[in-house]
């Protein structure tokens, strides 16, 4: 079970969180024209990376905040966690 540092609550066990996928995906702006291809990429296409990866988790059974987690998908090492509003560096 992973040990995730919630930027709001501190170190917590994985079972308090739920996984939210790739954190680098940006939702297209509302009301803007977008090609079918770009929309499809946003909705469906995700890389399945091995290695360092920024992903979203929600501290569901805690502060309910969505957070950004930089994790190695192979080793499960977590390098950094950020609040929702903090930019991935």
């Amino acid at each position: 079970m992973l040990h995730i540092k919630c930027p709001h609550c501190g170190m917590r066990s994985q079972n308090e969180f739920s996984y939210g996928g790739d954190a680098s995906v940006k939702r297209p702006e509302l009301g803007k024209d977008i090609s079918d291809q770009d929309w499809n990429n946003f909705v469906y296409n995700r890389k399945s990376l091995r290695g360092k990866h920024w992903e979203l988790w929600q501290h569901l059974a805690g502060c309910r905040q969505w957070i950004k987690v930089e994790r190695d998908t192979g080793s499960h090492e977590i390098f950094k966690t950020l609040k929702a509003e903090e930019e991935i560096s």
Partner: protein
Amino acid sequence: MTQSFRLKDVGLINRNKKLSFKFNGKKYYGYEGDSLASALIANGVHLIGRSFKYHRPRGFFGAGVDEPYAIVQLYRNGETEPNIKATEQELFDGLEAKSVNCWPSVNFDIGAINNFLRIFLPAGFYYKTFMWPKSFWYKIYEPFIRKAAGLGTASIKHDKERYEHKYEYCDLLIAGSGPSGLASAYAAAKNGARVILAEDKSRFGGTLLTSEVNIGNKSGKEWADGIISELKEMPNVTVKNRSQVFGYYDHNMLVMSERVSDHLPKTKEFHPKQRLWYIRAKEVLISSGSIERPIVFGNNDTPGVMLSSAAKEYMKVYGVLVGKNPLIFTNNDSGYETAIEFKKNGVDPLILDTRSNPNSEIINEAKDLNVKIKNSYVVVAAQGYKKVKSADIAKISEDKEQLGTIENVKCDCICVSGFWTPTIHLASQSGNKTKFNEEIDAFVPRKSKQNEKTLGAANGIYTLEETLKDSFEAGHEVSKKITNNENRVSFPNVVEKKSSIHDKFWCVPLPKGKNYKRFLDFQNDVAVSDIEIALREGYRSIEHVKRYTTLGMATDQGKTSNLNGLQLVSKIENKVVPAVGHTTFRPPYTPVSIGAIVGREVGKHSKPTRKSPMHSWHEKNNAVFVDAGVWLRPRYYKRGNEDLFEASKREAKNVRTNVGVCDVTTLGKIDIKGPDAAELLNRVYTNAWLKLPVGKARYGVMLREDGIVMDDGTTTRISENHYHMTTTTAQAANVLSHLEYYLQLVWPELNVNVVSSTEQWAGAAIAGPKSRNLLQKLFPNSDVSNEGLPFMGYMEGDLFGVKARIFRISFSGELAYEVNVESNNGNFMWEKIIEVGEQFKIQPYGTEALSTLRIEMGHVAGSELDGRTIPYDNSLEGLLSKKKDFIGKRSLSRKAFIAEDRQKVVGVVPLDKKTSIPEGSHLVKDSKAPSPNPKLGYISASCWSVEYDNPFSLAILKDGKNMIGEKLFVMSPLKNKIIPVEIVSSHYVDPKGERVRS
């Protein structure tokens, strides 16, 4: 029966406490402190079971966790448990155990015929033999295998024992209380670290209990006892025996199973039987020791062949002789220690040493005691069927290929030592890449991925002095990292006998003309010949060889067999062992009971049950409940002998003619506040929300980004910046997360807060033509007329002194209201509604009637909004705003979603107006078409229309828009039904929606 193999005055057992127990129905005696194994051996019982595949007789091979044979079915306090190792089970008064794998009995076992048929049962025999002919599988092979195989019987009774889970954090977890565990725990604890020391046996000390050493002028055992009692007194230390750390998971989380009560005849009141510990440790020291490995020779599975260290442990710990005429077969000095112990207890052993001329302190001691030793000698084969009677032995050439003349010597046990294999399971599970240590012919841990370090024998260090030095140092260093303290403990003086190097010999060649089975894996009956076949058939990867032959796949996970298996593969393949590699070590290290894994989450505890504040009223009024997620909801209220069908029809009918009340507390509720709340709703819902006035509710549909309907419900504007959203019962949690996602990550600029208020409100839906009359009586001071509270209106009211929210919304399609009060007042509200409603013939109605009402009205719900449908499919396209963007809108222009013949919800009526239509049935054009018959759609929900008194269903049907009036067939192969039906509008009752506005 007397304990004829029990030694006088030796061992750590309590001879003042005699215990009686039964094995296979026969009564025996042992002592407190015995294991089931030691007590059986003391009584001369050596036949304990039959092997898995060939049903060969099985005795004891080890004395602990490595035991591959002695697996029994245990009976304790009216319960039974399979897969118990007799070597690990502590004896208690009244214990009962039975052999497994024997049918009809351990002495006459019909499956042993496999032993004589074994040429038909080589490696991969399951894959080959039983594949053909196919028809034989169900009738002959499968029942035979079922009857003959298995490692015991699981109880089918409810387990009344209690199991617990515990979460713990510590600075340092130490797995194993042998010399390295004790030394490191002591050094770390004295340096201020919070330490957990775990030992899987009941006694602390590991090898110190059986080795002849001296630490600080004390015997090994005295030193261990001293350390343990000091540790137990320290507030920063938790010392746990009977606790096996069996799994090493990510981020230094380890799981340990504590056998709290298994050693007692009965679990004490308020105690669990077992406790599972989830331990998050900053640092881990693995001091799991090593396991002696066997040397492979003919018939090496005969009862009486066992590990030499086990023989020594039975003598020194339990005061039990494993034989009175022992043969010791060794390639290293460990066998001599066992021989010396035999000699001290008045028994004359014979040592066969594979080495030609070994020399060491230990060997000299044995020689001084006049122990008989034959150098360059091997055991070729054990003789005897149910117990070793003699051994064929021979001289072996220097190159270990040629056997000399075979001699037969009488013996009643063969104690084998093929040197030591470090227990690296936990280290390997942690992600540690192991390396092969040539000096000890075994794998040891290499680089740690996590904060762990392996010490002592588990790290391939076999001298006590070096082990203790390393371990004191490691305990100090690791604790210093955490506490920054510098309190060192002094290193004690260590006296131990020096040993000479071992011989890398592990397998005795077959003599000419003999075809003895030479076993590698004793639990799964994998022999040398099986591995040879696997390799001949082209299996190369050790992982494939393992699966094809089942080497190391039994419940002992190959603790005694893995390395010899690798040696064999490397020899045949002409590779070095590290090039062959080893298979993956996976948790658990030892079997863990299902009870411990499940913990307290059994029965209704597996998920908390949620009840509405009106639950007790429902109970008192004969409600029959149904699980709705974790909620319990009344399905119907039973009157007299009514069944579900009759009751729900009565309840639904009463809503259509008078008035009914339904508990809707379970609906998800989300409180939304903030200046941008309307903007949020406008983006989340498909319809327009910016102009909803205060005091008005609106129905809305929300989509996922892929255009699929996520949920629906009404949201009411309570005040300027305050909205009350309702969701379906099932989607409540998902919708909240969904809103939080967009607010926190996508549109953080929106100034809105959302919070679940499901528990804060009790809800009652009042529905039916007389509902307004009832409402007037409930709220005499409020104007609830059609003008005062129009359809989709909202007001606050005073319900006999209780503040209430009144929504004019309808799910049933009738004139209806929903009243919410604070949960505390829920029951009060409900009772008032029933009491006042009596004059209007009110009846409570359950979820079944609720379904009937919504289905015949054509209101879509969970069975249509099933994660596969878009708004159009549910005839909700009228709610799609063309003027604004919203979540999922862009997906709705996908080609498949705008196809002319896109599926759509329709109504379905059987032509005979009688036959009920099973939910999930398919709709087809031609009932006689050859299969696969093209499916046009499926029945999503069915009811008995109370309005028309005939069956009615909703269906999602291809080109549903143009199918109204068509005649199709409903096919249900499951229910074996073919029903001719007519497709009608989904709005079967009141298609214009006049009632809700009346």
